[in-house]
């Protein structure tokens, strides 16, 4: 903190313009609170879901009649949908980790290279280390690199962009050096299953049933806790809606997946990661501090938060998830090649941004990032079904990214 920062530099009497953000409500005036006015964040989430559904319907309509066995289109058919979700699993897992780093006001550009490196090391560890050695190696590599880069950012004060840009280059070099440019096949059957396997229908139904029980229990215990704290408790109707809507979604999901041969393993991994990520960001002090650090580092520091430690921790969590993603990717492809993971950092960042994350830090949700990844994967998948040329696909995805943020800014200016 420099000296002038501690002494006010505004010597004229302060005015509303100085002390209130644009759009602030003057003293004593209640904010307009129309009954049907949704909070901006909720509105943004609905817009995103709406865009996703619109994309799905568009591709469904466009694929009508392509395949005679699916006269009503193949996009939302069980086989394709299962395929789509498998395709997004890697990006989704990376996006969840990336979200935490971006929320804390940082960035990680090295993710794609580390996916390649961790995947390569996992493939090399199959012979000496067995399954545990291979899987463990990828995770350990991810966490160590995350911790190393995080420490450079948090404790050596090197900008995250620079540290991880260096990482993007250096880790790719390490893979090339280690593998001598060779592609290493995945030999262990279980390893391979991680990428392409599907769980049996029964397991799917059991997991769905467990999820339903968890949702019911969570709603009931939440209501009990609110009563204990003397807060208003939602009525029976609202509680029922909170239970029924997710249960219906779970049922539809399980039905669709089982019709396609069972829930794919990578999709299960993504779901687990997303639930864990949502819990970390929304229900822990760690998550709360990340948002505070990204939103206003000065206020966070003066509130007693150890900023450096939490930034380092965010990079470690991301590193762990990069390890997981590298396993999913290597398993799905069936081998570790030296150029694996190229551009994945950009996919992950794009997923976060499309999902409403601010690159300035402090804003964004795990669910948004996952939906963002789903939107990207849907575009990929749908355009491939339609045999859109490769170059057009790149242009469309780039345009969607810019347009998504553009709309977001427009909406923010109005609100």
């Amino acid at each position, binding site marked *: 903190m420099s000296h002038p920062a501690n002494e006010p530099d505004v010597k004229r009497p302060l005015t*509303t313009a100085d*002390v209130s953000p644009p759009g602030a409500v003057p*003293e004593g005036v209640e904010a307009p609170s129309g009954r049907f006015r949704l909070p901006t964040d909720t509105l943004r989430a609905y817009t995103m879901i709406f865009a996703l559904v619109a994309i799905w319907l568009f591709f469904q309509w466009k694929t009508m009649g392509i395949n005679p066995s699916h006269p009503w289109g193949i996009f939302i058919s069980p086989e394709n949908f299962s395929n789509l979700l498998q395709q997004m699993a890697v990006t989704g897992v990376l996006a969840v980790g990336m979200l935490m780093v971006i929320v804390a006001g940082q960035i990680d550009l090295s993710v794609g290279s580390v996916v390649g490196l961790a995947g390569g090391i996992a493939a090399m560890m199959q012979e000496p280390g067995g399954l545990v050695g291979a899987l463990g190696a990828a995770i350990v590599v991810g966490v160590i690199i995350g911790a190393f880069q995080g420490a450079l950012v948090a404790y050596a004060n090197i900008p995250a962009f620079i540290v991880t840009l260096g990482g993007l280059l250096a880790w790719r070099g390490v893979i090339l050096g280690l593998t001598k440019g060779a592609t290493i096949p995945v030999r262990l059957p279980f390893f391979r299953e991680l990428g392409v396997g599907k769980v049996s229908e029964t397991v799917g139904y059991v997991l769905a049933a467990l999820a339903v029980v968890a949702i019911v229990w969570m709603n009931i215990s939440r209501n009990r806790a609110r009563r204990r704290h003397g*807060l208003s408790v939602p009525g029976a109707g609202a509680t029922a809606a909170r239970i029924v809507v997710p249960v219906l979604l779970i049922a539809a999901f399980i039905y669709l997946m089982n019709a396609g041969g069972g829930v794919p393993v990578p999709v299960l991994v993504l779901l687990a990661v997303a639930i864990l990520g949502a819990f970390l960001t929304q229900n822990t002090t760690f998550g*709360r501090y990340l948002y505070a650090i990204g939103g206003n580092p000065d206020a*966070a520091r003066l509130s*007693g938060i150890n900023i450096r430690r939490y930034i380092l921790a965010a990079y470690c969590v991301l590193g762990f998830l990069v390890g997981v993603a590298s396993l999913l990717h290597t398993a799905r492809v069936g081998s570790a090649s030296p150029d694996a993971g190229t551009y994945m950092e950009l996919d992950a960042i794009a997923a976060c941004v499309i999902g409403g994350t601010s690159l300035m830090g402090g804003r964004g949700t795990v669910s948004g990032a996952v939906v963002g990844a789903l939107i990207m994967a849907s575009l990929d998948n749908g355009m491939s079904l339609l045999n859109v040329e490769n170059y057009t696909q790149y242009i469309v995805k780039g345009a969607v990214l810019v347009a998504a943020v553009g709309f977001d800014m427009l909406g923010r200016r109005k609100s």
Partner: protein
Amino acid sequence: MTTPQTSGAPLLEMRDITKSFPGVRALDGVSFDLYAGELHALVGENGAGKSTLMKVLGGVYPHGAYGGEIVIDGETRRFASVRDAERAGVAVIYQELSLIKELSIGENIFLGREPRRFGVVRWEELYSRAQKLLDELHLNVDARTPVGHLGIGQQQLVEIAKALSQEARILVLDEPTAALTDAEVETLFHIVNKLKARGVGMIYISHKLDEVFRMSERITVLRDGRTVGTNQTSALDEPRVIALMVGREVGDIFPEASHERGAVVFEVRNMTVEDPNVRGKLLVKNVSFSVRQGEVLGIAGLMGAGRSDLLMGIFGAHAGRTTGEVFVEGKRAQITRPSEAIDYGVGFVTEDRKRFGLVLDQTILNNMTLAGLPHLSGRFVTDVDAEAAAGGRAMKDLRVKANSVFTVAGTLSGGNQQKVVLAKWLLTNPRVLFLDEPTRGIDVGAKQEIYGHINRLAGEGLAIVLVSSELPEVLGLSDRVVVLHEGRVTGEFKRTEATPEAVMSAATGHTRSAA
């Protein structure tokens, strides 16, 4: 010293200047004039309107944004921009210098006005002209030196060189000596005298009355946006100027409260804080104070006296090196970072709530629980309902006006934002609470509410350390007042002895201990 010509037509006349901000009249019919070759000092308390007046003159507030007229050389001027004012010969040198450290002295002097031919900068001409200006000021450096290599005093002279290069005839110096060493001050004054001889008119804003009396021909005192009086310096003395500066009644918006005072809960001994940017420069020098349970200790002082630096230093949040001892309830407390201060029961409502206090994007609740999260909610897993219950109670206690605890903090008015910051610290269960400018930029109604809360909290046994630039506020709320001047304690007063004149006299550097 030259004799200024204060007869005949003035170089500058500002007539009946009025400037309003929403809800506040910052300048109310101020008139001010300046003769060629004169140094006219402008003094007043923080917020009296000095800087606003100079911004009107400098074109920061364009014509139409203020009332009244500016006449230079008998001609009415309507500046649309800072550039316009510069062209008319007005140069303002602000307290925080506006030089670009990475550029050379010459580049800074001619920034945006580089001599060029066909759009190509003529470097030789630029540097030779810059060198000539530096020679005139006896500044013995190469014009190609980056400004960042110069000391603050030399940078100040570069600013003056820049003003001279614009052929400024009206030069505004805003607290020019605040960051200078004694030797640098002498150099500056030497140059000021040379400029007077050349017929440059200077407006000099300073809190240091000894300098004002030494250098000025006339003094104008502003108070609450009005001119209190313009007099020949020779007709005034320091006590008289101080009386003119403060001359207002302490309003009765301060609830009379006598607090039951208990034992000393918090004590600071020999606190020293170094400027993180200038090695060896001390912002706070050997300050000691203590505060009792249920007591409000006011810390008064003018801008730059080191009040905020003192609090930041104690709280473990200052970027500069600090030394000194802190005792909480008689036990030595090692505080090197804010989290340790919070653990010792120190709360700190920082100044500038938007910059240091709030995460504006987030809800009232998340802001309120930020500092006390582990004990309000849980060490690792949070409990939103427990938080909402605590936050809801705090919101009711402090009467924060908002729809719910989930309203985004950035949409609140200033007063309500301030209450949220206050709630954040109260929710850490502090034993001693620092309040730094707690009512800055909020309206009178909200101010009075905050005053009420301060008295209530002291009544409940909290020890409070209050820093405020508004003298009536410090005097109206404090049981005891410590006055800082340039980082040093220059006075300590009990409530009954703390008259505005006595405090202002100490704040302008007249050491006195009445306590």
